[in-house]
């Protein structure tokens, strides 16, 4: 579990990125931070692994104050996936995935074998192992990014708009596989997006941020759609019309899940090639 | 260190500022060789670079790119002094033309490569937009490509100019005038003050040319392009 208690982030120029945030992020679930740009959602995410240090308040991970852990050690225990994947251009796919295990001093051969298993798990052909990131499509690179974040088996995964840079068809496929993967691994996932559809689709809990770094509402998708806390949240959901649409999509997804494997997955793999 | 002060007092000696061996006439000689070589270089390399820069498609583009780049690398490898001496030994000493040939050979590649690269780096999207607005080929070249390629073209011209001024110094070794005269004569007579005086003059001239091009860049290149390409 990750907790924020009265956390603020102010920059020297006076900008307030995050304003008195209290938040409890449950273990083993996907929590989505959503909001327009400049609302502090990414800053909030980055304060968890201390890529940004909070100005006030306390952040704990499983009861430990993150300030008491030195940043590199903290970060090696938390997976991180970003929009451009951030793959190392000078390392092969398999070595990219094995990065953190090797940092932790694990055996090189085992790390590579494990990386190959992970490739399969995220739906990547093992034949890609010896390639370099430039030789992969955007969707494939994102899968590598996810595999790399999982490689050291961290209990927590931070994901910053991981699927925003790929086209909609591939994105849908990645989201579906991501949900399937999460069913297997049950990580504590904090997921940042500006896309409310994605938030409703993936989130077990959704935290809606508004400009100025204030938390507007923190609820399950159902509660959020049923009772938006204020006018800002209602607008962000797209008004009554948007809420109806989001509910409809949500029901469709539920049916898809019931009917088992989706056709999307296959379509996505084809599109990735 | 004293030797350097001696060199500085050399500037104050009588006769240094007049006559055929005076600084003004040596400066005129140096500038004359340099300007001549520079103009020939520009006349050859600039149009060629502009032309070749437009070859962007197909196998020909690859070949052109390779040849242009290779010429720049080759020019760096050519030993200037060797070429100068060879040109003189094969013809007759004291003539200007055999000196100009190596000067031009060495100065053409930097202008060619940078002009070529400058034109090549104009984004195809920009060119599309210009044509889409109804610009003719000439208008695209003059109003879009030239201003955008200008920083690199100026860089090429500067490199060539500096190269020429340096190499023109060596021309004195094969019997011509210019500031190099002081260095060669000073060395022959073991008069260090004269050598150092010549060296300082050439260095100052080179730095002035460098600054001239920096100023030119400031006034000729659009601030929008300058900000984009940095420094």
């Amino acid at each position, binding site marked *: 579990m990750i907790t924020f208690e009265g956390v603020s982030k102010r920059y020297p120029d006076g900008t307030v990125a995050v304003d008195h945030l209290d938040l409890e992020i449950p273990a083993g679930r996907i929590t989505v931070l959503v909001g327009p740009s400049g609302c502090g959602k990414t800053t909030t995410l980055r304060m968890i692994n201390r890529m940004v240090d909070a100005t006030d308040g306390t952040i704990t991970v499983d009861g430990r104050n993150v300030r008491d852990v030195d940043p590199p050690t903290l970060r090696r225990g938390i997976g991180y996936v970003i929009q451009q994947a951030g793959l190392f251009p000078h390392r092969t796919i398999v070595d990219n995935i094995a990065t953190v295990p090797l940092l932790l001093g694990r055996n090189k051969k085992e790390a590579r074998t494990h990386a190959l298993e992970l490739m399969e798990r995220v739906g990547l052909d093992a034949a890609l192992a010896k390639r370099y990131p430039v030789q992969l499509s955007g969707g494939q690179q994102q899968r590598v990014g996810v595999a790399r974040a999982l490689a050291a088996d961290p209990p927590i995964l931070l994901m910053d708009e991981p699927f925003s840079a790929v086209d909609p068809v591939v994105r849908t496929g990645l989201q579906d596989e991501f949900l399937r993967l999460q069913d297997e691994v049950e990580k504590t996932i904090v997921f940042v997006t500006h896309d409310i559809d994605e938030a409703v689709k993936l989130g077990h809990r959704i935290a809606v941020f508004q400009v100025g770094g204030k938390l507007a509402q923190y609820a399950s998708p159902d509660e959020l759609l049923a009772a938006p806390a204020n006018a800002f949240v209602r607008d962000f959901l797209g008004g009554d019309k948007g809420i109806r649409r989001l509910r409809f999509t949500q029901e469709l997804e539920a049916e898809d899940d019931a009917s088992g494997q989706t056709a999307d997955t296959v379509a996505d793999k084809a599109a990735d090639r | 260190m004293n030797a350097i002060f001696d060199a500085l007092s050399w500037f104050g000696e009588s006769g240094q500022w007049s006559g055929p061996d005076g600084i003004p006439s040596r400066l005129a000689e140096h500038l004359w060789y340099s300007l001549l070589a520079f103009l020939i270089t520009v006349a050859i390399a600039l149009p060629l670079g502009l032309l070749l820069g437009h070859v962007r498609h197909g196998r020909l583009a690859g070949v052109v790119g390779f040849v242009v780049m290779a010429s720049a690398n080759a020019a760096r490898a050519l030993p200037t002094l060797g070429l100068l001496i060879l040109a003189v*030994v094969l013809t007759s000493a004291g003539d200007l033309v055999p000196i100009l040939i190596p000067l031009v050979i060495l100065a053409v590649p*930097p202008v060619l490569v940078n002009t070529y690269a400058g034109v090549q780096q104009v984004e195809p999207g920009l060119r599309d937009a210009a044509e889409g607005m109804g610009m003719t080929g000439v208008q695209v070249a003059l109003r879009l490509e030239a201003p955008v390629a200008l920083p690199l073209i100026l860089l090429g011209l500067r490199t060539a100019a500096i*190269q020429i001024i340096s190499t023109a110094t060596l021309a004195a070794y094969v019997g011509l005038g210019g500031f190099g005269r002081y260095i060669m004569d000073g060395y022959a007579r073991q008069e260090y003050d004269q050598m150092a005086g010549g060296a300082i003059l050439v260095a100052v001239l080179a730095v002035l040319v460098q600054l001239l091009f920096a100023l030119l860049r400031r006034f000729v290149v659009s601030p929008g392009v300058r900000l984009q390409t940095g420094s």
Partner: protein
Amino acid sequence: MSPLAAGDDGEPLIRWEWISNNLTDDIAEALREHLILSFTPVLLGFLVSLPLGLACARWKRLYQPTLAITSILYALPAIALFVILIAFTGLTYTTVVVPLTLYTLSVLVPGVVDGLAAVPDHVRQAATAMGFGPLRRLLQVELPIALPVVMAGLRVATVSNISLVSVGAIMGLGGLGQLFTTGLQRDFPTPIVVGVVLVILLALLSDLILLGIQRAFTPWERAGGTRRRKTADQAALPGGGAA
């Protein structure tokens, strides 16, 4: 052995006997001196420009002044620097090595800074987020990615140095350039041609070896041709030093 071409007095461009007569003494000695005079500055310049470039990349405020100084240095004619240095170091190898080291710096410092600037920000961020400390990130992520640009600078500096060393011949410190002055004094083209050809070959060979090293250490650069950025050769166009 028919003459390749003739000078104005019927002297052939190359007399092969001269080459075989002088191969082991004059030519070999000149070559040895040339190698020392051109590679010592490359090595020294590399050792200095790496920390200097890193400092400029780390403290951006240093970069503009450094760039201004190196661009002035680059403009100074080698012969002028050689002559001025004689006052301090006399007619020794140092007189040639110091200016060429400065030229190497003027090419390599921007090379290191540009190379580090070419590391995508998201890659740097990802490295930090995975728990790389600053030093490890530099050594394992940033420097390897910067390597092609740095190597391009190193190649330019090496080739320029090899050709510039010969200018030192005017003061009797020119390696293969000594062959040029010999040729001029005797009005005899063979040594000049031999010198020019050897300098070019040496430059070409060094360039190829460095390119081979670069390729061996950066296999990812050859992978997938689609997203290749323009090669660093272009970035390093100005080249180092002038005669």
